[in-house]
């Protein structure tokens, strides 16, 4: 049980080793909790609208969040390994003087509407050495593939005729599945070269 009242929780994500739980709620902030004792570890602020989804990178060093403010933010959570949260006071201190802890590493700009979903490619994905490939789905009806190492948008996948509500990589990272408000699911071949992402459509009706 976590000792803080939350407003409507939008998304949660465990770190790959299961030690941290990230929670984002309608308060436009992102909170990291230590699973073992339910202690707050860190609060990340920066988005200018509801955070729809959060995801840890496969190596657990980075946290990605996407928001109604059209942006995706990448947060440094690597330094948390050395961080010892002993009291809630620590949390305030950390977010006030966050020169290291929870620094926003970068902002990915490109979507022209709310960003609803994000997913990191699995570490063993051939197209994503080091698990540095991120997919995002937006109400602008597109999916973007990003290289989070240099923060470039590699590909814009177009085809959905409604907002994209969910994106997910297959375990081998070869296929990206997307769900949309146009009542379809699309399966995309994952390639980081433009115009080489053939797609199959599954209509749901």
């Amino acid at each position, binding site marked *: 049980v976590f000792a803080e009242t939350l407003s409507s929780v939008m998304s949660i994500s465990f770190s790959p080793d299961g030690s941290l739980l990230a929670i984002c709620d309608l308060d436009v902030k992102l909170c990291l909790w230590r699973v073992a004792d339910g202690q707050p570890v860190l609060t990340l602020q920066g988005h200018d609208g509801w955070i729809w989804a959060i995801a840890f990178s496969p190596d657990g060093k980075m946290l990605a969040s996407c928001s109604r403010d059209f942006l995706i933010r990448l947060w440094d959570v690597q330094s948390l390994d050395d961080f010892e949260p002993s009291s809630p006071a620590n949390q305030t201190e950390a977010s006030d003087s966050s020169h290291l802890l929870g620094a926003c590493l970068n902002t990915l700009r490109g979507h022209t509407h709310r960003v609803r979903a994000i997913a990191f490619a699995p570490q063993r994905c051939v197209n994503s050495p080091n698990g540095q490939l991120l997919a995002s789905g937006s109400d602008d009806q597109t999916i973007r593939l990003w290289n989070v190492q240099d923060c470039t948008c590699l590909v814009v996948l177009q085809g959905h005729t409604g907002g994209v509500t969910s994106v*997910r990589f297959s375990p081998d990272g070869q296929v990206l*599945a997307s769900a949309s408000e146009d009542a379809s*699911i699309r399966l995309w071949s994952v390639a980081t070269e433009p115009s080489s992402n053939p797609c199959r459509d599954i209509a749901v009706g």
Partner: protein
Amino acid sequence: VRTVTFSPDGHTLANGSDDQTIRFWDVRDGTCQKILQGHTSRACCVQFSPIDVSLPSGTGPLLISGSQDETINLWNPATGECLKTLRADRLYEGMNIQGTTGLTTAQKSSLKALGAIEY
């Protein structure tokens, strides 16, 4: 369609939808394999368990779904059977308002929506 997720073996895609169903799709040919029914509102999130559990039909992952009907369902993906429904207690869960006086019909309805019972 609200959400999609791959099975751990990557062969099956599960989706949750505004039509209250969860569907399984064959990733290779795109055919619908199963339709799981049980939720009474949109299915917002679906996820396979990362570890295999022992099921009557053999060992395999569970499918877990969350819905706007305020429940979480655990499913056997092999049979499409709902194994368990989880629901957090509401504010007035189980409070019996049978025989109470001074409550309007509207107030009783509100209490019942928050878990009160009347019998």
